Structures are given as C-alpha cells and as structure tokens.
C-alpha cells in the first residue's frame, strides 16, 4: 500500500496562534481517510493548507513525490487535489451544469482563436466535458437539475453539487470538509455511499466529519487533531479505544 499524501512537520500560525503544530500525516492511496477532532482543532486549516489557501510557516507536504508547499492553489488543484468547503462555495450566478463545468477547467485546451472560430476541436472538447458533467451530476444524485440555478438547490443538494464539481477535476485526492453537516440520517447514509463509490473509482478521500457513527464504518483510517497537533492515528477501532482521544472529546464536552 503506497502513500499518496504526506505532510511532515506541517505548521500553520495565525498571528501567534498555532492552528497546526508540526503535523505528520500520511494518507494511503485508495483509502477513505477520516480527519476528526473537536471544533477549532485545526481540521479546516489542514485542508486549507493542503490546498494552498493558507500559508504554512514550516514543514512540507507532497502528493505522490510531488512537493506542494508554496505552490499556488490552482496548481495544487491541477496536480490532483480537489476539495469542497465547510461553508458551501458554489458559484451563485451560474446554473448547476455551469458550476460543474468550472471543475473541468484544467481539461480545456482550446485557444482564444479556436474559441472565436468555434473550431471543431473546441466544440468537441466542450461536448465531451458536458457529457462528463452530466454524468457527474447523475452520480451525486442531481440528475435532471442541470439547468437550474445553483442557488435554487436545497442545502443538501448544494453540497452534492460541490462534490460533483470537485470530481470534474479528475483528482487523485478529494478533500471533503464536513460534507454531511446539517443532513438527516437518511441523507448521510446516501452520501456515505456516494463517498464509497468515489473511492471505488480510484480516488482517495480525506473526509472531515463529526458523526462518529458514520465515520466508524466509512473510514479505513482515522487521524485525530487536537489543538492543532496530531493526537492519534490508526484504524477507527484503535482510535476510538485510545484513552487520549476519549479524554480530548470528553474535555470538550465538559
């Protein structure tokens, strides 16, 4: 089993506050890897650091031997890391299908001149990406909604749209920041199945989620962040029986 994503000593500082403290994380290729921890533990910061949205102050990260630190966000996306956001960030002025197609940006090759002429290659490219986008929408359960405005979707459907858009990148690694938040049990199960299907397509998943019931069965491995540091790492069983983890969560509840 090879390692797809690896961070070493990853550190993020916000004006004196260490949101991440020297985190060493390894995500195996083909896994569904869970990232858990109390609120404010630094989970979203981890995802933001991995996608170049917050600057790291120390440490390194790489995706299958390709160093990522210091690269701009779009390059990291191009290298094969797609993500969703904890607070949904769909494009409001666009339809569902147009939103999804933005995720395919890196696959387009047509030049300005080709677009102005609307050359055959440009048309074929657009056509094939549109077919992929419709397939992705079907896959996440948004079939038939492609013409709708993105803002008109229900909350749960907006989350699915974000996933479809991210899948259009054809990423090697998909980062999901609380994709199940605010959903009822049935919706969560449905989405968990979608996440498994994504993994079965060969895409590695790193997921942040607070529902331990779901995470126990969904994830192959779990990492626990607490106050910005990696507290534990292992199979769900190992992690949940770890006394450090129990006290971290109890400490938060108290």
């Amino acid at each position, binding site marked *: 089993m090879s390692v797809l994503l690896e961070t070493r000593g990853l550190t993020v500082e916000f004006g004196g506050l260490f949101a991440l403290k020297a985190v060493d994380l390894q995500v195996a290729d083909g896994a569904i890897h869970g990232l858990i921890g109390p609120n404010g533990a630094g989970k979203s910061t981890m995802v933001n650091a991995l996608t170049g949205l917050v600057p790291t102050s120390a440490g390194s990260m790489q995706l299958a031997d390709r160093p990522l630190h210091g690269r701009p966000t779009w390059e990291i996306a191009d290298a094969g890391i797609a993500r969703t956001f904890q607070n949904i960030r769909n494009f409001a002025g666009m339809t569902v299908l147009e939103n999804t197609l933005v995720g395919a940006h890196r696959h*387009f090759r047509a030049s300005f001149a080709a677009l102005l002429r609307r050359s055959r290659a440009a048309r074929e490219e*657009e056509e094939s990406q549109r077919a992929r986008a419709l397939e992705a929408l079907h896959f996440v359960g948004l079939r038939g909604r492609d013409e709708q405005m993105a803002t008109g979707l229900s909350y749960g459907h907006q989350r699915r749209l974000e996933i479809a858009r991210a899948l259009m990148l054809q990423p090697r690694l998909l980062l999901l920041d609380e994709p199940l938040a605010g959903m009822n049990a049935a919706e969560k199960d449905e989405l968990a199945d979608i996440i498994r299907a994504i993994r079965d397509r060969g895409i590695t998943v790193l997921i942040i989620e607070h529902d331990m019931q779901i995470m126990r069965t969904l994830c192959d491995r779990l990492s626990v962040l607490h106050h910005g540091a990696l507290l534990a790492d292992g199979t769900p069983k190992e992690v949940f029986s770890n006394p450090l983890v129990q006290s971290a969560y109890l400490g938060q509840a108290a």
Partner: protein
Amino acid sequence: MDIFGQLLVNALMLGAIYALAAVAYTLVYGVIQLVNFAFGELFMLGAFICVSLMLPSVALFGWQAPMPALPFLVALPLAVVIVAGLGVVVERLAYRPLRNAPRLAPLIAAIAVSVLLQSVAQSIWGPEELRFPRFALGQLPPIVLFDTIYIRVMEIFVLVAAIASMIGLTLFVQYTRMGRAMRATAEDPTAARLVGIPVNRVIAMAFLIGSAFAALAGVLYAQTYSFAHPTMGFLPGLKALTAAVLGGIGSIPGAALGGMLLAFVETFAAGYLPNGAAWRDAVGFAILILVLAFRPQGILGRKELNEAPAGSLVGEQVAPRGLFAPVDRFFGWLGQGNTVLNIALACIAVALAFIITNDYWLRILVFVVTYGMLASGLNIVVGFTGLLDLGFVAFFAVGAYFTSILFVLVLRGRFGIDPADIWWLFYANLFLGGALAALIGALIGTPTLRLRGDYLAIMTLGFHEIIRIVATNWIDLTRGPMGIRGIPTPSLFGMPLMSPKYLYLLGLALSILVVFGIARLVRSYVGRAWVAIRENEVAAEAMGVPTARYKLLSYATGGFIGGLVGVFFAHSQQYISPLSFSLFENILILMLIVMGGLGTFIGPFLGALFWIVFLQVAQGMPLIQAHPELRYAALGLVLVLLMIYRPQGLAARARVSLMMSK
C-alpha cells in the same frame, strides 16, 4: 534654499488638507470596508456652504438669497456640522440598504451618489467659481522667515486645525466608549455585533466624523486657493483616497503620513522637475501604483483590504412581478439566445439606417453604438469578471490617439501621405489599436495581479489619471488640450463614409462583430472562469482556475475592445481631445452597463440607448435647458435606486448562458 523653504511650507499645507480628507476615507473603510467615493463631493459641499455663510447674499438656483455674512471662525464649524449631518443622511439612505448586498453594489452606489451630489451642487451654486470672501484672519500680514519664506497666518491656522483634529480623533478612538466600539467593529464586525455593539450607530458615527473631516479639509482647501467650485472635490478626493491607501487604509496615523508623503512628493516634483507643475498629479499616481505593486497594504496598513468576492448583481433570478414584470418577461424571452431572434434584432438595427432619414438622429445612433461597444468591453471586466475598473476609458484613449497620431501627425504631417490612398489602414488600425490597448492593459495589469477587490479599482483609477495627464501634457505627441483635428473619416475603397448613415452602419457592423466575439468567449470555459472569479475567487482557484491569469485576460480583452472603439470613435468624430477620455466618461459608461444589466450582452447597448435618447428628450425640457447638469443628477439618483431595488438592471432576465450552444 529660497524655493526649498517655500515649497516646504506649501507641502505642509497641502499635506494637512490631504491628511484630513484621507481620514474620512480611512475611517469609513475601516468600519465597513467601503470606498466612499462621495467624500470628494462632501469636501466640495463643505467649501460651498462655508463660503455661502460668509457672504451677505448668494445666488442659489439663480436667485439672489440673503445670507448671514458670518465671520470665518463661525461659518467654518457650522459648515462642518451641516456636512457631517448630510454624510449621515447619505449613509442612511444610500448605503445602509446595501449592507448585505454584493460588494459591487455599495461601491457603485457610492460613485452614483458622488455624481448626484456634484450635479446638485452645480444646480444650486451654478457652474462658475464662487470666490472665497476676504475675512479678518486672512488679511493679517504674513510672517517672514529668513527673508524669503512667507507664512500667512491662515497657513498656521490650517496646520493647527489639522493637528488638533487629528489628535482629537485619536483620543476619541482610544478613550471613549464609542471610539472603542468603532475599533472593535473595524477589527471584526461579526464579533462586534455578537458582543452587543450597536453596529448601525457605529457606522453612522464613522460617516459623521468622516464627513466632518472631509468638510473641514474642503473649507481649508477652498480658503487656500480662494475659490469654491462644483468639481473642486474631484481631484483632491482622489488624492485623499490615494493618501489613505499609501498610508495603509484603515489606519488613522497612516492617513496622516500618507497625506503628508503625497503632498511632499507632489509639491517638490512640481518645484524641481522640468515643467513639473503639469506632471505633479502624474507623479502622485505613479507613487500610488508603485506602492500598491510592492506593498499593497500601504505603509502602516495591517490587514488585507476587503477580499470579499464581488458577487453577482446578475445572479438572482426572481420571478417577474411588480413594476418590472413586463420588462422581465420581455428580456427573459430575449435572453434565450434564440438565433432567429438575434438575426431579427440585427435586421431591425440595420433597417433603422434606412427608416431614419434625419442626419441628426443618425448621428445620435452613431453615439449609441459607440457607447454600446465601449460598455460591452467594460462589461467583460466588471459584469462578467466582477472587477471594478475605473481606468477603462484609458484604453479607449490609447486606441483613439494611436490612430490619430499615426494618420494626422505622422503619415500626413511628416510624410505628406493622403489618407485616401491608405484607406485600408483604418481597418488594420481597428485591430492594431485594440492590440496596443490590450498590451498596455496586460502591462498595467501585471503588478495588480496580487491585488484583490478594491485595490484593483484604485489602481485602475491611478492608471487612468496618468494616461489622461500624458494626453493633456505631452503636447508634442498629442497636441495637448487642443486635441487633434482633421482625422480622416473611414472610407471604403477610397469612397469616404462621410454621411452619418454609413458611419452608423459601419458602427453597427463593428458592434455585431464585438458582441459576437464576446459571446463566443463568454460561452466557453473562459467565460465560466471569469464568472467563477466574480462569484467566488477562492473557489475558482481551488477548482484549478489560475485566477490571476484570467483576470489579466479579462482586462486585456476588455482593453482590446476599448482600443478598437477608440479607433472607430476618432475616425467617426474626426476630432479628439483629452476631454473625451475623462474619468467621468468612465463612470458614465459604468453606469450605463449597470442600468442596462451587468453581465448581459444586450445590457450595454440598452443602457447606451436609454441614456442617449434621454439626453435628447431632456434637451427639450425647460428645466433641463436651464440646468443641464440635472441630467446627471437624475442618472445618479436612478442608479442609487437601481442598486437598492433592482441591482441587476433592466435586462436582468437576459441571463447569458455560459456554455456553447449545441
């Protein structure tokens, strides 16, 4: 030594005034992240009100009205208080309803308010200068230092007033409850609301104090140059904004430092550079661009300027209802991108050339297509990519000057070539002028790539001013304010297209090409990348869109169209001068797009049509004949109302699809 000392005094004076006005921008920006462009006009109103109060009678709306003839030291505080109140009213009426609107909405409203106030002031006090009356304090004999430096008592007064109000403000912000609440709101508005700070009152307070500072600066400025004029606030307003950005917007000491720095650079450049007085403003704006490129947060700035995405004014697709329901249904139908419909529309536009036989109205149609095309170019940047661009007219100027200089000054003037022999060059120049403008756009854009949001708008403003100053002052190249005459009309195989009918048809053909080209780019992955940047830059970047590159591409594409239209404009008007490329022109074009519908294909033309027809109709009204500036007041008012009630503009429902049609 002699000139140095005098320059020092002058720089200190000007610096004090800039610093005061810069505080206005910085304070409001700090609290609600809004560049309130209207401070330049509050500055001007302060001056007018103070002068009026000091006179025994003033002509208001052309009527001689009695005035109290107050002494300066009474009129000054009174004027400041009145303008401060006005600032709060403006906030309440124009900006508060837009508190939760996309970032572009209050910015555009601020520009509209600024146009409105300036036009209203012109209606009230007339377009002429109002001289600053003599008063006792101003008549005291100057103090002479080292035999050569003359310091007037009023100059000491200006400095003391500025320093005292700065210290007062600093103490207020440090030690009063309200001041601390303001600081807390500036740090984190959401948290401030949560801990129970009355955010609305804090914002009103920021406007109150800001407007007072702007008015004080205006009075002192008018006193120094001894006049008040409706447009007097424009350039100092820009300078104050520049000073605030230089010092680090949001920081009060930064505003003071930025104001002084700018005034010193300008004053000494004017004093020591050859022909410096003409170039002083360009030097100031060049410094702004340099600072923005290398240290965007300014000298003392601590945090990033507003990074919130522009957001779409276009996005909301509410069901047609109310007043606009028929309009919405019409444009909803039009916006479906039906080929038959488009061809029908083009046919009607062509038919107009033959139906209308009156040259006067045909000439007006030439204006409509010119402005429509220009607005379409700007629409790429503002409407589709969501970047506020206040320097767009500069591209227009580049195209117009390029072709005019080439045809008139070089080919005819230097080589004696008859334009009729090289008629085809006009068509080549359409492309070359566009390409030149695009190139310049890319060069200017490159340092702004790291910048987001409002910085970009300020940068484009600086760029525009520099181009305008070059056009006005590089007389050997551009003939300066005189402009270039005798630009040949376009011709076809040596047959000049002199009549307005042919010019209109030519402009129409270009318009169709322009819209066609834009549509093909927008309906592709390029357009989707642009709109994605507008809607959410962070998400766009995370989806693999190199946002910096696409912003530059947007600038350059818009610039290309601007340059192309400049070439057409120069040849169709046969005369250009720097006046055709003023910042006001830029604002006007922006307003036309907003009125017609940002991010639609038809909107720019619709806005241009409405505006130019309105101008014609208004010419017949007696009120407008007496007060032509009221046309602009109406435009400003309509825009504020549109921002509040219908930010998507008229053609809201003509939403543009971002995909190639099958």
